[in-house]
């Protein structure tokens, strides 16, 4: 199955230093929060950006979802701070 594409925005993007990356697809029932914890465990900018999940929001295939949502078969996961509007 295709890898999972992850997008980062705002200060999450800045801390990690990249706007997107592909990761090996986790199991379909893994909640987004667990994947975020795995990424944060990489340390450095990842730990800084993703260490406090309360400050993060996510979208699966361009739909906002809570962080306890299983990743399922989504192709694209976006991780970002709460949107601040235009």
């Amino acid at each position, binding site marked *: 199955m295709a890898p999972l594409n992850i997008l980062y925005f*705002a*200060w999450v993007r800045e801390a990690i230093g990249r706007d997107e990356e592909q990761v090996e697809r986790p199991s379909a029932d893994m909640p987004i929060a667990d994947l975020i914890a795995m990424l944060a465990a990489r340390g450095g900018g990842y730990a800084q950006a993703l260490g406090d999940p309360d400050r993060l929001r996510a979208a699966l295939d361009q739909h906002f979802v809570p962080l306890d949502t299983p990743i399922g078969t989504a192709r*694209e996961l976006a991780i970002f701070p709460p*949107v601040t509007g235009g």
Partner: protein
Amino acid sequence: MTQVSIQTGDFDTATELAALENCGGGGVASFTGVVRGDDGLIALELQHYPAMTLAQVERIVEDAMTRWPLLGVRVIHRFGRLEPGDRIVFVGTASRHRTAALESCAFLIDWLKSHAPFWKKEHFSDGEARWVDARAEDEAKARDWLS
């Protein structure tokens, strides 16, 4: 006629208003947002989630079309780097009824200003820069809209 643009470039409000005036309605309401230079702000940097922004704005425009009898809706939102005095957003609505035009315009700009998937970074004259935090009440409203 509905049209949504998410773009870096400026826009011409006269052209947009003229198109709305030609929709055959009796009234055209508009709102134009301009970047304010408060507290030494020298630039505003807007980032967005392109695959999501257009779809969401189009969805809220459709929502407005079902709530009010509208003949035309035009939404333009800029992203990238903007400076004080720059236009940042335009919402125009045309309807036979002035109340419908005005209310839907207020509804759309309200949604855009608080819930559209944009992130803003403020750059100040002293070299400081900071990402704008979401306000808790906006987040609560956003959940209502998007659920």
